[in-house]
Structure formats: C-alpha cells, structure tokens
C-alpha cells in the first residue's frame, strides 16, 4: 500500500500508477454530482452540448453537501460521500465522454465502471462515509454551482479542496476491484469458518 498526494488536473499517468488499497489525498478541483446530476450531464452530452465545467482530468465526487449562503457566497457546512452504487448505471458513459480521471464515493461500484476505468484510465476511490465535518475543513471554497434547480444536494458543486482524504483506491485502472476481493474473502470465511463453528447449514 502506498500513499500519494495528487493535484488536479490529473494526468493519465497519475492514475495509472495507483493500485487498489492505495491511499490518496487530492488538492485542486472536484465536482459533485449525484443521480439527478448524472442524468442531466448525460442528456446534455448526448445532445452534443457541453457541461458547465469540463470534467476532463478532474475529480467527480458522489456527494450532496449541506451549504449555507454567507453574504453572497456559498459556504460548505458539511459534506460527505453518498452511496455510489446508484451511479453505476451512468458511470461508464460519464468516464467515456468526459475524460474524468477520478471518482470519489462510498460503498463501491460495479463491473461497468471498472471496465471504463481500465479502458480510459480512471480510478474509483472511497472517502470514509460520515466524516463530514472533517471533510468540510478540507474544502477551501465553493468555486461555482450549477443546476440548483435540481435542489441543493443534487446540484453540481465545483469545489476547491486541499488534501481531501484519506481516499482509498477501490477500483484501479488495471481491472481490480478491492471490494470484490474483500467480499470474496468474507464469503470464504463465512462458509468455511463461521458457519461450521456455529453449526449453521
């Protein structure tokens, strides 16, 4: 396991060197999108339109912040990852069409995302869910917000972050999925150690 501090824009080389289990801290620009935002982004791209911000080489974050407006500026009160599995249906296309390099979320993603990560050079990482106050202290400023009509959590927030982490690489660009391996190990333990010990099955 290695630890890296990376700065956006990320190069393909930056992410290709990452292995599952590595810990990463990000400085630079991250952009939040949840289900509704993914849907809108893909609709726009399908019509040949551009997104409000070009995601190429940037970091996409599955999150909906709690924000407040101080004078005329938005401030992140707390922010943390939402469950990424809901975005699995959209992510292959998002990676393919935008050239984003890194996703942050929680809970893991599936084989289609892993395929896109391998093909286009991207990684999926997780942030410890629930550590929202800590993470807010890693967000330096709200750079911009788009699509507020989707509601505050589902809008597209462009954030400037400093040492955002710890992020663990769960899907790398070599086709490995950390959680698949953790699940496989867990299944083996349940079937060969835990159930026999408890006399179950």
């Amino acid at each position, binding site marked *: 396991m290695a630890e890296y501090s990376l700065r956006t824009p990320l190069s393909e080389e930056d992410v290709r060197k990452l292995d599952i289990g590595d810990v990463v801290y990000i400085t630079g620009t991250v952009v939040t999108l949840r289900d509704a935002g993914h849907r809108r982004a893909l609709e726009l791209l399908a019509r040949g339109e551009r997104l409000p911000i070009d995601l190429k080489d940037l970091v996409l974050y599955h999150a909906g912040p*709690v924000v407040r407006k101080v004078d005329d500026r938005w401030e992140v009160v707390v922010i943390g990852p939402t469950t990424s599995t809901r975005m699995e249906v959209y992510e292959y296309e998002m990676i393919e069409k935008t050239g984003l390099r890194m996703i942050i979320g929680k809970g893991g993603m599936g084989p289609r995302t892993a395929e896109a990560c391998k093909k286009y050079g991207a990684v999926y990482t997780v942030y410890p869910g629930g550590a929202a106050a800590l993470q807010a202290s890693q967000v330096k400023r709200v750079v911009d917000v788009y699509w507020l009509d989707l509601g505050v959590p589902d809008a597209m927030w462009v954030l400037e972050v400093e040492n955002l982490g710890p992020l663990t690489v769960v899907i790398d660009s070599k086709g490995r999925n950390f959680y698949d391996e953790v699940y496989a190990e867990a299944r083996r333990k349940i079937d060969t150690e835990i159930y026999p010990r408890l006399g179950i099955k």
Partner: protein
Amino acid sequence: MSIASIENKLLEATVKLIEAAAVWLPDDVENALLKAYEIENIPATRSFLKAMIDNVKIAREKRLPICQDTGVVMFHAAVGDKFPFTGLLPSILRKATVEATKRIPLRPNTIDVFTGKNPGDNTGRYMPWIDWDFVEGSDTAEITVLLKGGGSEVIGRAKNLIPAEGLKGVMKYVIEAVYEAGPQPCPPIIVSVGIGPNVSTAMKLAYKGLLRPVGQRHEIPEVAKFEEELLRAINDIGFGAHGMRGKVTALDVHVDYAPRHPATLSVAVVINCWAARRASMRIYPDGRVEYLTHPHLNKEVV
C-alpha cells in the same frame, strides 16, 4: 409556570436535544471507535478510523453535524402515566424538528412519496416519527431522538423464517444481511435484531434495541450470550471500517425478543452506521429537563 412557558421551555430543550444528537456522538459510541482504532493494524483501516475519530472531535468543537446525512428524525418517548404534559409532546417534537432543521442545520430529508415534494423542514405525514412506551407509576418522560441516515436504513429487513430454522436460522439471516450490506452502511456498524411472532413486533423490537448503549448486554443471560456469539461471528467476516478489512465490522449487536406463535418465527434486522446519533433527556413533572446521554448540557440549562 404557565403551560405556555413550559411548552416554550420544552421546545427549546428538544431543539438542544436534536442538536446534541447531530453534533455530539454519544460517549459509548466514541469509545467503541477509539477501541477499534487500537485493535486494528491495517494502515488503510486505521487511517479511515482516525479520520472518523478526528471528525467526531471537529463536529463537537465546531458544532457541525457529524455526517452530512442528518437522517430521518425518529423520537422514542417513554412516558409515565403520571407525567402531566403527554398531550403537549407531539406538537413540541414536531416544532423542535422544524426549528432544529433551520438552526443546526439539518439536511431536509423528508420526501412525500406521492407528491415527490420535500417540505424542507424534515416533517411530513407522520414525521417526525414518534414511538411511544408507557411507564406505569412514573411521573417523568424520557425522550430519545435518533437521527437515522439513509445509507444504513436501506439495509434494514425482516423475514418470516420457518420455525424449524430456529435461532441458528436467525443468526444466519443476520450474518447474511451484514454480508450483503458490505461497506454500504458505513461500518463499523451497530446491529439490532428483533425476534417475535410477526415481522411488525420483530421490527419494533429491533428499533428499540438501538436505544441501548453500545457495550450493554441484554439482561437475560441466554440473550446476552446470543448477542456475543453474533458479534464475534460478524466481526470474523472481516470487513472492518468501511470495508477496508479488519477485526471490527460491528461495534455491537443488540437482540431482543417476544414469544413466537407456534407457526411463526419472525426476525428483523436494523443496522446503524458508526455515526449512531442518539440523545436522551428526562422531563420532570415540574418541567425541569435532565440530559442523559449528553450530561454536559445540564450545566447550560436553567
């Protein structure tokens, strides 16, 4: 004190209770996290636990929500039959939810199932949710608030087992639920299990189990032993904090039960994430309030 002034005082006290739950993790949960940090030795797992523990401190000091998903507001009221203000409680708890949503702030999380509308204040049909228990011979009321985040609630489930499956069947059902949930409910989790004659009673008991502090065993030795066995089995699965691998997948397991019907054996499982936000207070018949999970607040109360 007039009824109106008691009402105002209890409203303020309840807003404070909700704030305590949102920003200040109960000691029993924080201590369990610290213990997990000591036990684990995988670097990624430790760095995640450290982030969570740091987060708990920052949230407490800056009075910020521990997690951005401040959940659904669920109250439990254990009310004495001689407690004089029972009738005031539903409106107080509702108003306090609205006020707390503004003040802390809480994320507005109640979406009407039929209209799709979010009123923005965490209320709605039957919301905030209130479970009632009546306590014979008591003249106080004990109010607990739980802020239940979506990531762990989505794992909750119940099933009617075949009675022949017995307690081993219950164990298997719980272990499989935890396995399927994997890292989704933000482990280390608290697992609460209800067993009974139908899924409704089983689920009710499972939710009630979340009121019990981490580390507290059931008063019936057989149940306590069952809890310990289940806790060990779940931790042996090896998910660790957020699925980073490790020895602590669950901080605790709580089990409670009611008799089953000869033809039924129902089991319910609810899971709480590590951010187990819970706060309790006792209201006395003179309107005085004592905070139970967050005793430091008692100094701030008149």
